[in-house]
């Protein structure tokens, strides 16, 4: 079956009911998307499907025909980090960091929708994500910082 992951076509030989998370972390070797619960209740596995935050742990690959999947690996890299990634590093937003890839994905979907989110908008967008280390306050600041940077750079 053919999947579109981070802009590239990837062929996988897996049964249709395989979860996207198993496909990503298994055959596709993309490890940034994480397992936390397998039950849509922690957000560790969040990816974008056609730009919409979706739980990879419960999305069968069968449902992804003709759709575009974005994982954390697709946001940016060390040479060209996404403004969100840069802001998370600038704010040192994270402790163990296990929750961060899913959170970065939901934050990206938010900033794609609105370039001037309020604190409430950010909290709403991230509320499906759990962070056990208590990095929440920094994470909110990091999203605010990224939004500010993105709106100034698009205004100039």
């Amino acid at each position, binding site marked *: 079956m053919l999947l579109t992951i981070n802009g590239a076509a990837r062929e996988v030989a897996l049964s249709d009911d*395989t*979860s996207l998370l*198993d496909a990503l*972390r*298994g055959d596709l*070797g993309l*490890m*940034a998307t*994480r*397992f*936390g*619960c*397998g*039950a849509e*209740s*922690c957000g*560790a596995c969040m990816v974008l499907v056609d730009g919409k935050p979706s739980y990879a742990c419960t999305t069968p690959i069968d449902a992804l025909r003709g759709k575009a999947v974005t*994982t*954390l*690996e697709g*946001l*940016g*890299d*060390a040479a060209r*980090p996404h403004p969100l*990634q840069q802001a*998370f*590093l600038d704010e*040192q937003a*994270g*402790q*163990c*960091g*296990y*929750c*961060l*890839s899913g959170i*970065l994905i939901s934050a990206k979907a938010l900033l794609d929708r609105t370039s001037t989110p309020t604190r409430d908008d*950010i*909290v*709403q967008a*991230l*509320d499906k*994500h*759990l*962070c*056990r*280390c*208590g*990095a*929440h*306050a*920094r*994470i*909110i600041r990091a999203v605010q910082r990224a939004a500010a940077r993105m709106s100034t750079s698009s205004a100039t």
Partner: protein
Amino acid sequence: MTAIALPLGLLENPRLEQWIGFEKAGTIRIASGKVELGQGILTALVQIAADELDVTAQRIALVSGRTQATPREGFTAGSLSVEHSGGSIRLVAAEVRGLLLGIAARRLNCAETDLTVVDGAIHRWGVATGLDYWQLASGLDLTQNASGSRPLKPAHLRKYIGTSVPRVDLPAKVLGSARPFIHDLRPDGLLHARVIRQPWPGAELAGPEQVTAHADIQVVRLRNFVAVVAATEQAAVAAAEKVASQLQWTGGVPLRPEQATPGWIATQPSLNATVTRGVKGDHAPAAKRFKRTYTKPFIAHASIGPSCALAHFENGKLRVWTHSQGVFPLRDSLAKAMQLDVSAITVEHVQGAGCYGHNGADDVACDAAILAREIPSKTIRVMWSRADELAAAPFGTAMVVTLEATLSSSGMPIDWTTEVWGGPHAQRPGAAGGVNLLGAEALPNPPKRPPPIEIPEAAGGSGLRNASLLYDVPHQTLVNHIATALEPRTSSMRGLGAFANVFAIESFVDELAAEANVDPLAYRLAMTSDPRARAVMEQAARMADWTLQKAAGQGRGFAYSRYKNRAGYRAVFVDVDVDEDVRLRRVWCAVDAGLVINPDGVHNQVEGGIIQAASWALKESVVFDQGRVASNTWDTYPILRFSEVPEIHVTLMDRPRDPPLGVGEVAQGPMAAAIGNAVADALGMRIRDLPMTRERIIATIAG
């Protein structure tokens, strides 16, 4: 020669080469037995080493938590890593720098004081000599023991210590560029396994004789240890579900719903001990006495990533990859549990998701080791399910704390009794010669668990951690009860007994202040002589503007503590809104951590501690039903969410000349008490049983 008091780590690992090496030109190997748990310790150790060696941080290659390559330093726990490992590395780095300068001085025929080091290069009178550490190191015998006799760098010359160097481990986690977690390791030929846990402690497998599973699945059955092994993780998960549905269990110690009720732990058989302090004054028999009881339930570590480990067994040698807090104690316990020689086992740390104490990391490593021995020459990866992560790892114990004070005519305590009930907190593998690995307990001839012990007070105590008063009270009695035959398993969780003890004491002090009709901050200051304690209280009060008026339904609470009565100080104010739910609005917190190696790292730890403690205080409680732990999903074991997180302001006191004091756990106790005090302020009624849930508030209001 004057005897220098060396840190424990250096006494147990005395040779310089155990800590430092110059094997590769341009980089310096620094080895630590401590491990990264998400707390930023690796970054702090790099800062310490770079400063003392006068090199840029990039030159430090840190090796951590490997039984074959790092000093034996016990567990990464108790907020002691900077003090212990950092203290040893600082002394070793200063000494090696001095020894290398000595060699350079002899070669250059000059005085050591003529020389300086610039990023590892030796300069004389400010001019490069062409010599550097790496050339000189061949002439240095690193097998010699550390003496700790070289002076440490004075505060004004430090470049990294005291600055917020960015975390070394964070980029990989934010960029998705590497595979930072143990869950991500995929060595060739890897097999995936799942263990089907006993449904309650000590459950015995009653049948069937044979289980059915897919032909590709290997089922391992060793008395009560049942596991499935498959080529893919997906297949292992499916097979585990299929096999679990066929198993019948009997015997053991089924868990009962009432174990989750406040006070249950105080009804259990226990080991009892009493200590008294100070001088008992003659108070009038009519003096007023005041007594209250506070409780906390069993709580779960609830890490976001389930416990995971890999193991490989070949030619009698066992190799284990783990996110355990203590690779050496784990190795020793595995040797006992599997009847292997310690020398046949190597254990290597790889980062896991956040760790807040003795969680499932050691257990899952044992699972992997058992399976690796059954299926030799293959690397076996075991990951726990979300349900096992919430139900099978050791819990933080339920506690009951009863406080009684005799009051002077002005309402100040003159005699005080603290009575504490709880399960054991110190049950890590290897504690008091016990093993405590869940998988091994399911095998034939299970090894013994550690006996229920209290950690000595000199090491911070466990059930009695922070039970002793920080206030000037002339006489106090401490009574400790440790449950002796407790199921479920309980062990170390962030703060140990300090969470419940500080919650109780700081709630009680507010109740006493109200009784005496004195402002709670003024009441505490009146019985506090330690200037550092007074300073954090006053600082927090300034931050929060303590005198501010508040609206109906709002409450404000204060609490103070010094972790372990000897580590970091912390004072906190909390603003809450209470209707039927408690909503945290703002938190102000002042912390005195002595010398701070990495200020942003300390801020991060304190903020995280505040949020986690708020989660414990408001939401968390393990639930038992039908013999099992029923709180095994995020719906049945909810934790604090983004929408519930308050605005947080943290200030660190400036103490560059005082020794560093651990902060990883300072936040736990005071936060719960400050919330409780704020809720009491808002409601005019007090909740003494944690967590302060909606149901408890409704019940309290209803009377």
